[in-house]
Each structure stands twice: as C-alpha cells, then as structure tokens.
C-alpha cells in the first residue's frame, strides 16, 4: 500500500508542478489549435473506450502525453500534437519516422528503451498514456505495468490504440484500415486535433480507395497469395500474421491474400510446413528498422538469403522467382498514417499494371 500511495503523491506533485509551469505554453497551444481549425476546447468532454469497453473521459485536451512506443508517437506528430509529448518507450530508431518529423522525434525524452519502467511512467507527470500494445502477453508478464488504480492515483489516463492493442481480442478479421482510421480520429478528439485527424484520414482514404478502385475487377481468387515473413521473430519457427492483426488489413487492401488469413488472432507461431504448404506467390521480407538505410538493406538481404538457402523454402515459387517485397515490419504491423502508403506499395508490386 505504502509505495503505491507514495507513487500517487509524487505523481500528483509532479502533475501540479507541470500544470503551473506550463500555463503560458498552454495558451500558445490553444491558439495554435484554433489557427489550424481544430475544435480546441469545444469538442470536450470526450469519452473513449478500451478493449474491454471501459470508458475514459477527458474534460479537456491533455497537456503532457506519454506514448508506449514509436507508433503512437508518430501518430501524435502527424496530428500536430508533438509538442505535448513528454516521453516515449520503444523510441523510434534513426530513420524510423518520416523525414519531416525526424528532428521533433529525436527531441522526445526516452523513458524506456523498451517498456517504460513503472515508476518512471507513473512519475512522468503525464496526464495521458497512449498504449499501442498493452495486450501483448510478455509485456504484462514483465510485471512492470501499472495497474488501473495506480494510473488513477498518478492522475494518468490510460488509453489504447485499439487497432493493435486489442487485436487479439477482436471478434472478426481485419480486412480494411477502419481500425487504424478510428484510432486516428479518436486520438484527434482526445488531443483536440480532430480537424487534422479528419484530414489525415481523408488522405488515407484517398489512397486506399484509389487502390480499391484499381483492383475492383480482380476477383478474390485471382489475387496472389502473400506471406509476411517476420524475420526477426526467428527462423527456426516462423511467426504467422493472423487475420486480427493490422497487417492482415494492409495486405488485403493491397490486393493480396494473406496465406494465414484463416488463423484467428494477431500473431501465432506456426511450422515451416505450414508456410511451404501455402506456397505463397509473394513474400514480404518484413524486417525491423535497423536504424539506417544501409543496415536495413543488409537485414533485407539476410532475410532473403535465408529463404534462398533454407532447404524447405528455396524451391518455393516465390523464392525461385524472386518475388520479394522489401517492406519494413513496422509499417505493416503497427497502426499508422503510413499504413495507407504500405497498401499502395503492396498493390503496386502485386498488380503493377493496375496500380502505378
């Protein structure tokens, strides 16, 4: 009890301090939002729900935001709420965020190289914590995640990017980007940047609708089969991207048939036998950002070399014909504005005559 109470007190003190100190900055912020046509304080109170349906209500836009990882961080940058980010876990590596945000992202304090330690998170003085992957089993297992009571005591509202955090609990497959879009809209409402969110979503829709129109004459069974090879999850046992994961939506929208679309869930370890049996038409070499173009190129090459030298995969159709897509893991399996670009990129490789 005692340590928990202390946390609360410390966090409360920190919060008050920042609230007072940040007074001037707030005005500026509000003004900026007004200028960008945002709904400012008007749209509040705003309520959002978590994966289980529990509600969190905001009476005004948060002033200090902590993000669990680079995906949530990037979304805030897109929304123009970057100046309110007080820290992040899983910081974006060099080159991981779009160029226009690189400087701003680099300035965000890193509260944890992976999961943010509990005390640091609770003591961060944030008023909202945006969680992209809280449902991930091992993160809970780390025993480092604050409980809802602790969040409450620290005055932190805990909200989720539901398209990824709730993926495993979804009831039906994800085949379009609506989950990502509603995450963006919701984040827009919470941070008082709804107008910008609407712009972003409209822009994404334009891209995905364009692809959809271009591919509308391609019947379901004529679409090439597609395997997302998660190289970093290990090569002894491949990891399947199942139909509740955002990547399933990205692949489907891109005109591909995820070979593991019949598997319910987000990720599942399968056997190589399952991959070989599907004999995919295309394979995405999904490696994680290695922190630089040269390093990324090397990682893509390693993934390709593995498939070309592993006896069971080297004679697969896609491998023999060199039908690989070098698209990073993050842009496919994590929700973001660029998911729409990934859709286009996939569609272009799979259907070059229809999508330029």
């Amino acid at each position, binding site marked *: 009890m005692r340590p928990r109470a202390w946390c609360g007190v410390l966090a409360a003190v920190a919060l008050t301090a920042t609230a007072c100190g940040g007074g001037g900055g707030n005005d500026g912020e509000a003004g900026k939002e007004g200028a960008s046509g945002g709904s400012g304080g008007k749209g509040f109170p705003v309520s959002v729900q978590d994966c289980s349906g529990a509600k969190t209500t905001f009476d005004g836009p948060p002033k200090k935001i902590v993000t669990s990882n680079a995906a949530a961080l990037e979304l805030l940058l897109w929304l123009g709420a970057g100046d309110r980010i007080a820290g992040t876990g899983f910081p974006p590596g060099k080159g991981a965020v779009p160029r226009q945000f690189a400087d701003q992202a680099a300035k965000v304090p890193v509260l944890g190289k992976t999961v943010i330690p509990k005390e640091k998170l609770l003591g961060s003085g944030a008023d909202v914590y945006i969680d992209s992957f809280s449902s991930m089993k091992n993160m809970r297992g780390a025993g480092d995640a604050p409980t809802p009571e602790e969040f409450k005591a620290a005055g932190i509202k805990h909200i989720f990017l539901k398209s990824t955090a709730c993926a495993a609990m979804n009831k039906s497959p994800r085949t379009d980007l609506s989950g990502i879009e509603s995450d963006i809209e919701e984040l827009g409402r919470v941070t008082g940047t709804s107008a910008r969110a609407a712009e972003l979503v409209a822009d994404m829709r334009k891209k995905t609708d364009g692809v959809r129109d271009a591919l509308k004459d391609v019947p379901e069974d004529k679409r090439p089969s597609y395997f997302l090879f998660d190289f970093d999850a290990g090569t002894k046992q491949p990891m399947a991207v199942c139909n509740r994961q955002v990547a399933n939506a990205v692949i489907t929208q891109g005109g591909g048939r995820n070979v593991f679309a019949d598997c319910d869930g987000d990720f599942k370890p*399968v*056997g190589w*036998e399952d991959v070989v049996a599907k004999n995919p038409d295309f394979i995405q070499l999904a490696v994680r950002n290695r922190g630089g173009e040269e390093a990324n190129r090397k990682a893509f090459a390693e993934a390709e*070399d593995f498939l070309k030298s592993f006896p069971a995969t080297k004679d697969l159709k896609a491998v023999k014909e060199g039908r690989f897509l070098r698209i990073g893991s993050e842009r496919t399996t994590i929700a973001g504005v660029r998911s729409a670009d990934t859709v286009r990129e996939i569609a272009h490789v799979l259907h070059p005559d229809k999508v330029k």
Partner: protein
Amino acid sequence: MATLAVAAEKEEREDGREPRTFLVAGVLVVALVVALVASVCLGSTRVPVGDVWSAVVRGVTGDDLAPGTHDLIVWRLRVPRALLAALVGAGLGLVGTATQALVRNPLADPYLLGISSGASLGAVAAIVLGVGAGGAFGLGLSAAAFAGALASFALVWAMARRGGGFSPLRLVLAGVGIGQFLSGFTHYLVLQAGDDQQTHGVLFWLMGSLGGAQWSTLTAPLVAVGLGLAALLARARALDALLMGDETAAGLGVDVGRLRRELFVVTSVLTGVLVSVSGAIGFVGLMVPHVCRMVVGGAHRRLLPIAALFGAVLLVVVDLVARTALPDQELPVGVVTALIGAPTLLYLLDRRLERG
C-alpha cells in the same frame, strides 16, 4: 576391474534381466520405427500416404524432388525433423543417465549442472544482441549455444574443483548456482528483447523445438550421440561401481576423479551439441533413465542403450504431438515433455511403489 566384471555378470544372471533387455530393446526399435513413420506421415498439412511414400523414395534414391510442395514438406522438413527428434531424444537419454551416475543423484539432468542454462544464454545473447540471427541459416546461433554450454561447463568445473577433487555435492551445488546465475542473465536479456515476436525467437532456445531441423543439422548430433554412446558404454562397469559410492568404486579399481572428469566432458559436449540444434529441451534427460531403470535395472551396459532408444521414441512422439496438437499453431517441445512426461513419470513411480 576383473572382480567388478564378474560381480556385475553374476548380478545379471541372478536377476535374469539379460533376456528381458533384448525383448525391451526389440519393442523399442519397433516403436521407434512406428513413431518415425507416423511423424513423417502426419503434420499440420494433410499429405496422402502415397505422396509421402513417393517423396521418401525420390529422396532416398536422390531423384529430383517433384516441384509441388508435398515433396518439400516430406523430404526437407518432416524426415529430417523426425530423425533429429530421434537423435536428440537418444542424446538426452544418454546425458541424463550419465549425469545421474556422475553426481550419484537420481534428480540430475543437464540442467542441474548448469550446462543447458549456459547454452540457452549463448543463443539468447546472440539473438538479442543481434549476432548471426539469420546469417548462415542460424549457424551463428548454434555456435553461440555451443560456446555457452562449454563456457558454463568450464565455470562449473573450475568451481567444483576448487579444494581439489570432484565431490558430487560440490558439482551439484556449483552447477545449480552457476545455472541460476546464467538463467538470471538470460531472463534479463529476454526483457531487453522486449517485444513479442522477438521474445518468441528466444523461446525456441528456452523451451526447445525441433523446428530448425534440416538434413545438414543431423550430422553433428549423429556423431556426438554415436561417440557419446560408445564412450559411455566403454565405462559402463565403472559407472555401475560409481553408484555404489566413491570408496567402493575406488576399492574396485576405478579412478573416481578421472572417471568424473571424463563423464563431465562427455555430458557437456553432448549437451552443447544437442542444445545447439534443438534448444534446451527439459525433462527428457531426467525422466528417461528413471523409466528405463524400472524396466531393465541399473546396470549401465543395459541401461545406456535402452535409455538412448527410449529417449528417441519419446522425443519423436512428443515432437509429433507438439506439431499437431493445436490447429494452426506449433507448441514448444518443452511444454509437451512437461505435460506428458511428468504425469507418466509420476504414474510409473506410483505403480512401482505399490509393487514395493
């Protein structure tokens, strides 16, 4: 040595276990063949028996494999995997038997001496620190696992030898202590990996899996298990003597210190090779010698080959279950060995107690 040989032979004649051993060996060989056939025929993909047969024939005769996927699945994945399971199972049976004699403790297995922990640490460090994750299809990882096994072996050896000689107790304590230390370090690294999929790549080494099997990975364990069996069989009499206590063994003309060193080297190298191809598969090394001792008695001349055979059968079956128990998912072998193996062992112990 002569007296010992006479004593052991006399014992064999007396308890009449020699003919029974041949019977048991015969049954196990048949069971192994059946298990191997089942393992090649069954899997998550349904392959008609005719196709299995023709794939095996083409593979054995060195003909070109048919371009379809069934040949790849049968000849490049299932056959090497089944054979690897048999080899690793046999090796674990031998290692367990030797370790139990080495420290004169029926609870001993490679884990107890910290060797498995060292191997896991080596592999996990390679993954998390990003060394050779894919490179020459995981050869870097196997090498790291092997190096870890040998390093922990050297540590345990150095610790156990301080103050001169090997006492079983010192060995066990040094093994447990160093094993715990290394596991702690491994867990630290797993937390550093921090994300679900990469953690899964790590799990392979902690829970064991035969998913990495290919024809080229069979050579090392084949040689190691063959040499290990020969080396241990050559010391079968001395092992029997060792179980009667150091003084008795010395009285029978066994150089106890030297024997322990030899056993330690054999078990460490063998364990290192096994872990490097299959991760740390627990429980088999502990359980197999027990079950075999119940059936054929404690004389190592009989016990060693039977333990190798039984270990082989057991692991082939366990791997088959791991691959097929759940739809669209593959379980780590360690999960299955614990879930099936532990109750079996307890049941057998219980029955044996009842019979007195």
